[in-house]
């Protein structure tokens, strides 16, 4: 089984982000960048499949600026076999990403594409689903368990009210959730080895994908400060507030 793992360079999960004063985005100057944590879980799962002998090859791919190669080095240090960098300016939209990944699938013919369920920067949660649609491949989103079968993978999804199991014939797409595994931290010798591995480079033009933006970002602002709660004196008052103020029930 060949596994493709797309990874994204994002602001580190532990950084307290600040919105730029002109509202054009968040401050990224002198800010620690890391691999999207959900993608890290996907890499870990692919590497575990590789170590178990189920996967024969694991390929990591990133779309982004030159610096995104840092995240590929992390993936290499964690144990992926090969890494591909598709150079693009920051801000490639989910549909464009899905199209690029589809073009990569044409080249690489993976049996399984493992993605993070979403990237923690824009939280779109779209790429995996769009890629599945473009390929016409079955998908399992937000999975917490993955078991390889014979020409299939069985995935468990955490849904409201329980767990849902899906058997996906391969090639298939799976997007991973937090509880799937706990990613390893790379060993020093593997970090050194990752330094020497080549990274295959191409551009979106090489793949023939048009990444012209279709979305317009109007404004980025901080979420409103949390207001204090109120006490209600009766259930009736609560229902009234839910219906007329919060408008969450009819």
């Amino acid at each position, binding site marked *: 089984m060949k596994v493709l793992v797309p990874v994204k360079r994002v602001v580190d999960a532990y950084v307290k982000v600040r919105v730029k004063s002109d509202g054009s985005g968040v401050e990224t100057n002198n800010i620690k960048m*890391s691999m999207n944590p959900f993608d890290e879980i996907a890499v870990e799962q692919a590497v575990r499949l590789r170590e178990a002998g189920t996967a024969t090859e694991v390929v990591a791919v990133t779309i982004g600026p030159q610096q995104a*190669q*840092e995240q590929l*080095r*992390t993936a290499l*240090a964690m144990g992926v076999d090969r890494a591909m960098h598709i150079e693009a300016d920051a801000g490639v939209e989910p549909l464009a990403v899905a199209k690029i990944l589809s073009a990569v699938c044409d080249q690489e013919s993976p049996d399984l594409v493992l993605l993070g369920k979403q990237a923690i920067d824009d939280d779109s949660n779209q790429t995996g689903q769009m890629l599945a649609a473009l390929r016409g491949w079955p998908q399992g989103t937000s999975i917490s368990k993955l078991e390889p079968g014979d020409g299939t993978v069985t995935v468990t999804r955490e849904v409201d009210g329980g767990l849902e199991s899906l058997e996906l014939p391969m090639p298939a797409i799976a997007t991973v959730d937090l509880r799937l595994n706990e990613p390893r*931290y*790379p*060993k*020093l*010798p*593997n*970090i*050194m080895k*990752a*330094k020497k591995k080549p990274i295959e480079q191409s551009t979106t033009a090489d793949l023939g994908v048009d990444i012209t933006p279709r979305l317009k970002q109007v404004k980025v602002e901080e979420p409103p400060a949390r207001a204090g709660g109120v006490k209600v004196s009766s259930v009736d008052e609560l229902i009234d507030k839910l219906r007329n103020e919060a408008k969450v029930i009819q």
Partner: protein
Amino acid sequence: MDFESTTEQNMIVDSVRRFVEEECYPHENEVERRGEVPAEVAEAIRAKSIEHGFYAANMPEELGGGGLDALTMTMVERELGRTSFALQMLVHRPSNILRACNDEQAERYLYPAIRGERIDCLAMTEPGAGSDLRGMATRAEADGDDWVINGTKHFISHADVADFTILFAATGEEEVQGRGKRKKITVFLVDHDTPGMQVRAGYNSVSHHGYHNSILEFDNCRVPATQVLGEVHRGFDLAGTWLSASRLTVGATCIGRARRAHEMAVEWAASRKQFGQSIGRFQGIGFKLADMATEIEAAEMLCLRAAWLHDQDRMTDSDAAKAKLYASEMLARVTDECIQIFGGMGLMDELPLERFWRDARIERIWDGTSEIQRHIISRDLLRPYGG
């Protein structure tokens, strides 16, 4: 000039940080309370650090070590410095001076130390010889092909868990022009099961609970000439060649601990409300945070630059002294002010701040006191003028 750390350095730092947070932080309170690291915890941390290649990361790759240069090692030490000394020292970095081993000694000491099979400790300090190391009374006398060692060493770090000691002993005197007599020093490798050598428990220290110092007694301890490290009488040259970077280790660990204390203080100042606003909004607190952040970065720059110079074979004693001096004094100020920001709670053992504050005290003393560092720096300034 380029201040950018490399991708590998960033990855190593991230990896060591996770190791420290996941493997060491959870045991800090117990180590502090018990005054020792439980054996199973020590074994687990050692095993994991060997598995991850952090153990002996300072040693060259061709010898089986991690192959990190001094600059990267300083970043690693900084991350290790975030946790208790008793825990971080389990990620052992064998003394660089072992690289002076000849081939036969390397098989018995250097390689087993790198593999984690044997642990070294370094013995210089004596009750009567602290800053004035040459005043040491421990002596080794030639007797046929052997050396017979007599004397006492104290404050010897982790000698209780070590398998052998890298011992500095006087082996004679020489006349130095215009300055009278001074002792000639030789370095010996002494196995802890050598008859005539005894390792006794040392003193209880206010700093670094769980990390033990020992007293070493040598009573007609006889070692063959094959135990001499390097050349006879050239012990201080060896120290100069191989131990100069150890001051950067102290500096780096100070920065790690200061960062951790400072992060706690920032979070607290932003969330703690008094008089209707977060205390960080009061200039008295906010400016403290700003000053500390500035000092921590300044200390880091000094240490990283000295380490970089070391990698270029251009570091002077003064460079290392400045880094160690400033970082250790910075840590004292930072831990003190962080406690001030937390108020009474900062002194309680519910939080790690009180121990950071206690632990900080030794950093201005060991590996050369602040006064010795200032002496080194001022001597460097005045000598060209004949002063």
